[in-house]
């Protein structure tokens, strides 16, 4: 019972973290694209927040801009281009692939390949180091002798 109550109170706490971005009503026909676009755009005055979540004044202006461009019949790409023409690629959460961003896009794969090579090298070195566990004839005989001695003592 207590646990249930605590859980319910925790739920109330999580409400506090819901963004207080001003909501702009968009006609249902655009709603889905509008929501998607706002999540593609980075708020310029916050650190790492989308325009959809940001309560900043500028983000509000950008939401209005997106809404009005949708109503004028702009395509999603036109809207994203409009934003990056003014604010640079920074405004896009999904940066375009071009020479400046090659490292960004390829870097993780290079790290992965490097990691795999490193792991393979480690595994190989270990398997080379494995000592031969088999006993040779002499040792087998000695082992047998020791075990027999043991039996006799009982």
């Amino acid at each position: 019972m207590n646990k249930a109550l605590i859980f319910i109170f925790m739920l109330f706490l999580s409400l506090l973290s819901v963004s207080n971005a001003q909501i702009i009503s968009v006609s249902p026909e655009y709603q889905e694209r509008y929501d998607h676009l706002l999540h593609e755009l980075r708020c310029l005055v916050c650190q790492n927040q989308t325009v959809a979540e940001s309560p900043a004044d500028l983000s509000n202006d950008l939401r209005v801009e997106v809404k009005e461009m949708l109503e004028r019949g702009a395509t999603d790409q036109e809207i994203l281009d409009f934003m990056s023409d003014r604010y640079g690629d920074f405004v896009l959460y999904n940066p375009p692939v071009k020479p400046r961003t090659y490292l960004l896009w390829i870097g993780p794969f290079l790290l992965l390949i490097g990691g795999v090579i490193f792991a393979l090298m480690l595994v190989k070195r270990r398997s080379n180091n494995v000592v031969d566990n088999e006993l040779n004839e002499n040792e087998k005989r000695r082992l047998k002798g020791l075990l027999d001695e043991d039996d006799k003592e009982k």
Partner: protein
Amino acid sequence: MIRFLIPAFLFLVLTGFLFVGLYKDPSLIPSPLIGKPIPSFATSTLRDPNKVITDRDIQGDYALINVWATWCAACKQEHAALVYLSEKLQVPIYGLNYKDDRASAINWLQQYGDPYVVNIFDENGRIGIDFGVYGAPETFLVDSDGIIHHKLVGVMTPDIWEKQFVPKIQQITSVAAK
């Protein structure tokens, strides 16, 4: 030996990146408008709601376009520097009064001095969006063709003027003279 050198090398590279990162301001966003003409606009001037001002009205061998507002604390900080540039050095400064209230803006200029040739009144911030404004104050340097050569985000100081603007202006005017 190499077993230790490789991790040490990787560690140094990583440290290098992080160290450089320490001195970068993550709130600075490079403007894609450098090298491009200023966006076109047509609106009223701050002082006269009936007078139209457009991008073609920004003239001179070079000019500054300064984005400001009365609600912007840092704008008050840089205001004395702008007045100094305009009065002592005859720098042509055009104001872009951004998302402001007309009466308070005029009042501000009367109170603190008016360094501006004229002020573009951008009530709803639309022109600001076209200029890629994300935080006032911002100052653009444009040449006689209206091409943007430099953008400063933050407070203008005599020191920044000397270091960032003067060399660029010399470039602009020497090219224009040829």
